[in-house]
């Protein structure tokens, strides 16, 4: 479990992290999103007990980052922003070095390195100098280093950066697998919003050192982007002849759909010759009613689907909606 309460970090005149409160339960992934310089890395460094908080407190795997820093570092795996490998060492030597620092006994260390290397499909490269590695391979080695001691808390800063699509997918699979272990809490810092959406149970958006939005991913989307958006497609262009057509829609379909559900339960957002989009807070009740009304009007309905509203839209609304980032 990772808990932050009023966490703050100031460097001279700059407040890098300001009053952050978050909780990541075991078995959960929290995606920490924000523009460059928003305070993500400083937050991760405090959680990894590398930097001391100026105020507030944080506990990682049950240990306080300020007073039990050694224990925190023993129980946390940190994937740093840059892999930062030692170019003159081989992959195996490098991982062995970190395994020794983590006090993993020799035989288990070797076995663990071999199995993780196999998992990340990098066994063949283990005996090559790290200086010869591609960026993606270096990132994989850094990930193995992070997972070597099987920590209960993981802090992953841009885990799939510089990776080819196949490797990125492998890393995402790994995170899903790690999440399935209910004892592990994961914080994921990323600029890859589809990745965050796919992996994270919760999203926190940080801007100028402060958390400006945080919630479960679907809740956050619903809250910031409004109720779910539905789209109906017709088999061919279709016009409903109504007595009072909505001036925006160009035909009577707007009135037909909006009147299908009482108390403004449906709001038509847009319509074309062979499609119409509407939003509703209660799709379970509204959709059957709309379909019944359309069927009664002999509309050639082909499909009814949910329009995907991306996390990117949420992110941009939060980050850009509040002005540009000043850091």
């Amino acid at each position: 479990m990772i808990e932050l309460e009023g966490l703050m970090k100031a460097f001279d005149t700059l407040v890098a992290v300001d009053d952050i409160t978050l909780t990541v339960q075991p078995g959960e992934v929290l995606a920490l999103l924000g523009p460059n310089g928003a305070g993500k890395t400083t937050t991760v460094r405090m959680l990894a007990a590398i930097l001391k908080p100026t105020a507030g407190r944080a506990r990682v795997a049950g240990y306080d980052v300020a007073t039990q820093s050694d224990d925190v570092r023993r129980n946390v795996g940190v994937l740093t922003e840059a892999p930062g490998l030692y170019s003159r060492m081989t992959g195996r030597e490098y991982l062995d070095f970190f395994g020794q620092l983590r006090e993993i006994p020799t035989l288990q260390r070797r076995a663990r390195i071999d199995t993780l290397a196999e998992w990340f499909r990098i066994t063949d490269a283990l005996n090559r100098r790290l200086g010869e590695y591609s960026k993606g391979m270096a990132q994989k080695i850094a990930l193995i280093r992070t997972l070597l001691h099987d920590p209960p808390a993981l802090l992953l800063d841009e885990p799939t950066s510089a990776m080819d699509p196949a490797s990125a997918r492998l890393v995402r699979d790994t995170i899903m697998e790690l999440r399935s272990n209910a004892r592990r809490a994961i914080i994921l810092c990323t600029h890859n919003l589809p990745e965050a959406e796919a992996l994270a149970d919760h999203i926190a958006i940080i801007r100028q050192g402060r958390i400006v939005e945080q919630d479960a991913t679907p809740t956050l989307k619903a809250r910031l982007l409004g109720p779910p958006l539905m789209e109906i497609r017709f088999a061919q262009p279709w016009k409903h002849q109504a007595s009072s057509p909505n001036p925006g829609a160009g035909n009577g379909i707007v009135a037909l759909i909006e009147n299908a559900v009482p108390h403004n339960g449906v709001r038509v957002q847009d319509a074309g010759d062979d499609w119409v989009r509407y939003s509703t807070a209660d799709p379970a009740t509204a959709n059957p009613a709309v379909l019944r009304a359309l069927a009664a009007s002999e509309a050639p309905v082909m499909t009814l689907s949910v329009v995907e509203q991306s996390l990117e839209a949420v992110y941009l609304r939060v980050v850009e909606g509040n002005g540009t980032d000043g850091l």
Partner: protein
Amino acid sequence: MDFEAQANAAKLPAPPATHADSASHGQRLRTAWYPAWVVMRREIKDTLRDWRIVVPIVLLVVVFPFLATVTASRGLTFLNQYGSTLIMERLLPFLMLVVGFFPSTFSLVIALETFVGEKERRSLESLLATPLTDLQLYTGKLLAATIPPVLASYLGMITYLLMAGLRLDWWPPLSLLLVSMTLSTVQSLVMVSAAVIISCQSTSVRAANLLASFIIIPMAFLLQVEAGLLLFADYNALWAIALCLALIDVLLIRLGIRVFNREQLLSHDIDELDLKRALRVFWEAAWPHDGLRTLYTREIPAIVRGMRPELLMTLAVILIGGGYVGGWGIRHFPLPADVFDLGQIHSFEGISQMVAQSGLLASFSPWTIFLHNARVLLISAALAFISLGIAALLLLLAPIAIIVYIVGQVGSIGLNPWLFLAVTVLPHGILELPAAILATAQAVRMGDVLLSPPDQGGGVDGILREMGRFVKLFIGVVLPLLLLAAWIEVRITPHLLLNFLGR
């Protein structure tokens, strides 16, 4: 994206047991120094894989001793023609010291590479995220930067010894060998421990290399002092230097441990020159904003209180060092009684003439003495910057040693040395010495501040602040005291001396 299905298809390997889980290994591996040992081993292996470090060290260990032996051999042959064997006999140990010194300078390069290089390559953060304590990391890296150059230094000296022994039949006494090896070790440690402090304040190897000149210049200066002592075959003085260096090692290592922390290592100081800001910081510290009354009742006492450790160090060094060097001079270079021709001192004009003839001062006037002393103290402060304060201490130690030497010699011609001291030094010295001590202590502080991290009074702001305080102290206290002392030295001291001599 169906991650769940993929994840289920293959499972991650089972978690490892750590030594902490294993009682049999636990005790051994959880000992405090094991992680430091792991870090040290990795660093040394890494260093030995870098041909840019290994090749020059090998050349210095093999080729340079060979060249030194050839030079010594030729020199011996040449000087033997004129019967001046002593010069080469004394030069042979010096060459051994030089042969040992050159490889040890690599400790500086390795230390900068090990500490700030890792910071620059951004590999440090992953290391800082491990359970290593700051002390373990510091120790591992310190040893890794010290051991290879020191071993290379020993190897170079042994190579030279074997070559010189076989070719010139010169085998040094054990005491010389021991002192040379000790000096080489403590010098390396000084360079490494100072480099660590510099590294903590630098964001790039380039910046660290520029700052490293503050280490190499005093070390080169020290090597010249050691060369001089070797020519006099004064091994005791060499041991004294080794002891001083060992003490400096302790101080630097203590300071290094204090500044070597995760917070400092990941700080992002920008090596950028901001003249406006620099001037503002300097001006704030130098100008007495609240008037003269506050200057003398609050600001200057606060500066003096703030430099208490430097004051104590200055006093200790000039009293102990000055006493030792003056005493050493008395023992080794006793002046014949006729050199002290006090008969020349019969009038004020005579004294004035003697001073003018000595060449030390253009004339025996308060203004000349005042300007001379002020100039020396300013030079001393400037030198403090490039010597971490050491040059300032040495410049003040020198006149104290001379006073001790002269007062000691006076006893040999039947005068009471204490009375002589009270008459010739005390009247103006009572003002001049405190002024010099204050200026020197603040100069030492300016040298110290180079080694302090920004959050502990160091950094560019810290340096400028201390420079500002020096100016405030110098103009507010040191110059008035020096002026008054110079007036006494010219107008009162000579008359007291004449009275003392019964003229």
